[in-house]
């Protein structure tokens, strides 16, 4: 039998940390706050590792804590579910999360609101772990909304800055659109399957006869889930919040907006694979959205000058890869890329934070350059991350991206179009990442932090690190403290080695979740849906691998040519491209289009119709006018209540006289 694992402890530990820091942290010293935050998130990591070492043979484990909703046959419990998929997510979230916690101690040390930051960070860990451990969609939805909340709080961490506050709102509102789709999907499940429990839903879904399954129900559920995933994971058309989310502190960008939260959508799609497997149209939409997002975001990434914005678009693009993988039913490849991406993108963001830290808050790459001698540790770790994301062997990104590209071609749902766009995107990825790498670390230093003594500068800078001036001299370029470098090194090692496990072994590890759907949920399905067979095997796989490596190398070469060898060339190219270049620099004007098509009509409609028309014209007017009317009537009537006894007597006499006159008149009739 399965031992009692106390799975509930994993999410609850960070929650306790968040509660202590959030409620009492104001009175603690920074050391205490850091110790509490690190202690509780570290405990969650230890717990996750212990469980991982313990349970591999017992999976899946269901832990039912307490009943939540009971209404007739429908019931939802507070329950956790651990299988191979959630175990991978659990380790990624706790592992990367803990490393970023360590890093944050160094990065945020001089900031105001230190305790607030760590309380939010621990709160995020709680919700994210709830999300990945949930055993039904409703508990997952708690985590889903909760990470959105934590994301909102952390994006707007420097809430005195207008741009940060509105970026937080934007993220929250855009996510709300996705959550709406997710909720509708849940309602459909309750209506048609009578349950939200993963196991029960998937059993019903895989047991549905083929003509019902292929009907619109599963497709609409799948598409609505994809709307939710697109919101959370920043896919077209809901990706616009992620670049703005870079207003938050850099560790937040690393943890929430690169490594963990934004991958929740991928996790959700992979978790719901039983639904998507039987809804090919929905699956195709997932693949198309993923592919387009990968390409689209990568092209925007090329022209960004803000180091964090490049990484943000890169994240969107890489998430697109993961959806591409899920869309061709190669869930394990998607999750594999999710894991390696968590390593190298977390690393890249942290290294970028270290660079920003080094140059005193500057984020514009045009004002960096030649930093490799000043901050060697950051340089070498970032190099590892850059090579990993570009997909050079033997770095982690190579294995996962290669797996995705191969599956995109060879899977029964795949197509050579996905593959071609994927390879082109890989070339773009390599190009913009090495552009960032060359601009930041090579050439001449173009900033001013080293020359002018930089307190003023660091305040004027875009990151506006609103704390007290740094004690250890922000005046000159300096390497980050050890507490920031250790996580960088660990993540760099993971970015190098993380892919060596290989897609085959990873596939095999996850197969109980993905391929044994048949045996796990229902018997007859094994006949209904045969396991996907690759179209072709053998030497073509090596050829495809070769092509994607060449694409990456081409990107490196082009970046070297444009940004190292001939730094004036990019401007000439930009001039030659003219309008197209302008469009890319302005992110294809998507924000402007959304503002014109959705935001402005909504604001105008709300202002004119809802606010001035209905609220002021109807609701307020009804209230105001009835009050005014009552006042005016009273104004007349109150003169009768003079307090003069004689006038009262007069009224009584008059009334009596009228009464008598009436009676006399009645009598005379």
């Amino acid at each position, binding site marked *: 039998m399965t031992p009692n694992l106390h799975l509930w402890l994993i999410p609850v530990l960070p929650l306790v940390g968040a509660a202590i820091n959030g409620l009492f942290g104001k009175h603690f010293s920074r050391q205490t706050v850091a110790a509490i935050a690190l202690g509780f998130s570290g405990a969650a990591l230890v717990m996750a590792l212990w469980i991982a070492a313990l349970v591999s043979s017992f999976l899946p484990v269901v832990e039912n804590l307490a009943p939540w909703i009971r209404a007739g046959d429908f019931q939802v419990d507070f329950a956790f579910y651990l299988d191979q998929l959630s175990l991978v997510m659990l380790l990624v979230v706790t592992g990367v999360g803990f490393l970023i916690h360590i890093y944050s101690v160094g990065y945020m040390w001089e900031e105001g609101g230190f305790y607030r930051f760590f309380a939010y960070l621990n709160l995020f860990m709680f919700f994210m772990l709830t999300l990945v451990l949930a055993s039904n969609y409703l508990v997952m939805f708690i985590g889903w909304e909760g990470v959105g909340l934590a994301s909102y709080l952390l994006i707007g961490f420097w809430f005195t800055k207008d741009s940060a506050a509105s970026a937080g709102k934007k993220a929250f509102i855009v996510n709300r659109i996705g959550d709406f789709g997710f909720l509708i999907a849940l309602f459909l499940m309750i209506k048609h399957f009578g349950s939200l429990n993963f196991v029960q839903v998937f059993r019903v879904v895989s047991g549905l006869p083929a003509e019902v399954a292929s009907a619109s129900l599963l497709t609409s559920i799948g598409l609505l889930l994809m709307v939710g995933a697109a919101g959370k994971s920043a896919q077209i058309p809901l990706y616009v919040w992620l670049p703005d989310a870079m207003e938050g502190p850099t560790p937040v960008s690393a943890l929430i907006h690169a490594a963990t939260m934004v991958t929740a959508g991928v996790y959700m799609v992979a978790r719901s694979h039983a639904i998507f497997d039987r809804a090919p149209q929905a699956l195709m939409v997932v693949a198309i959205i993923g592919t387009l997002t990968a390409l689209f975001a990568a092209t925007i990434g090329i022209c960004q000058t803000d180091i964090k914005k490049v990484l943000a678009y890169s994240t969107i693009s890489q998430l697109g890869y993961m959806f591409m993988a899920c869309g061709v039913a190669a869930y394990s490849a998607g999750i594999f890329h999710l894991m390696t991406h968590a390593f190298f993108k977390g690393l890249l963001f942290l290294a970028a934070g270290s660079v920003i830290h080094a140059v005193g808050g500057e984020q514009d790459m045009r004002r960096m350059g030649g930093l490799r001698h000043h901050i060697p540790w950051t340089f070498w770790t970032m190099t590892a991350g850059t090579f990993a994301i570009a997909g050079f062997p033997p770095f982690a990104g190579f294995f996962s991206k290669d797996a995705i590209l191969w599956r995109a071609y060879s899977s029964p749902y795949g197509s050579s179009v996905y593959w071609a766009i994927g390879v082109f995107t890989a070339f773009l990825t390599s190009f913009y990442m090495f552009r960032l790498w060359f601009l930041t670390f090579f050439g001449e230093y173009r900033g001013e932090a080293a020359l002018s003594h930089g307190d003023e500068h660091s305040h004027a800078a875009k990151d506006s690190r609103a704390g007290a001036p740094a004690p250890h001299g922000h005046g000159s370029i300096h390497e980050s403290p050890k507490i920031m470098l250790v996580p960088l090194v660990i993540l760099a090692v993971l970015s190098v080695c993380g892919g060596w496990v290989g897609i085959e072994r990873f596939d095999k590890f996850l197969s109980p979740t993905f391929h044994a759907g048949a045996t796990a949920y229902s018997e007859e399905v094994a006949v209904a849906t045969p396991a996907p067979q690759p179209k072709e095997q053998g030497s073509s796989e090596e050829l495809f691998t070769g092509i994607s490596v060449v694409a990456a190398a081409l990107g490196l070469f082009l970046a070297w040519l444009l940004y190292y060898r001939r730094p004036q060339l990019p401007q000439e190219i930009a001039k030659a491209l003219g309008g197209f270049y302008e469009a890319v620099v302005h992110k294809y004007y998507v924000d402007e289009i959304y503002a014109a098509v959705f935001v402005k009509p909504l604001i105008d409609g709300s202002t004119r119709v809802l606010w001035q028309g209905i609220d002021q014209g109807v609701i307020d007017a009804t209230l105001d006018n009835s009050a005014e009317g009552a006042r005016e009537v009273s104004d007349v009537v109150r003169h009768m209540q003079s307090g003069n*006894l*004689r006038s009262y*007597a007069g009224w009584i006499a008059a009334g009596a006289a009228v009464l008598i006159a009436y009676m006399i008149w009645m009598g005379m009739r």
Partner: protein
Amino acid sequence: MVPLSYYLVLSGILFACGVTGFLIKRNIITIFMSIELMLNGVNLSFVAFAAQWHALSGQVFVFFVMVVAAAESAVGLAIIIAVYRTRGTLNVDQVDLLKL
């Protein structure tokens, strides 16, 4: 025999005199007397009806009214004396401490 309507008209005149006096007079004693006049106007109609219909209850009512009027004048006159002692006036327009 004097017809009933004569009594009633006289009763109405007495009552109207009482009301008018109550409404227009300033002196508390006069007002007080006006009230008594109204009561007795009503009494007159009671006894007139009692005599007309040979019903004793009208006369019993009159006794009750007279008893109440006697008690009222005992209390009322005591109050008037107390008011005059403290305020030094019997003009009701000047006895207005309770008005806003």
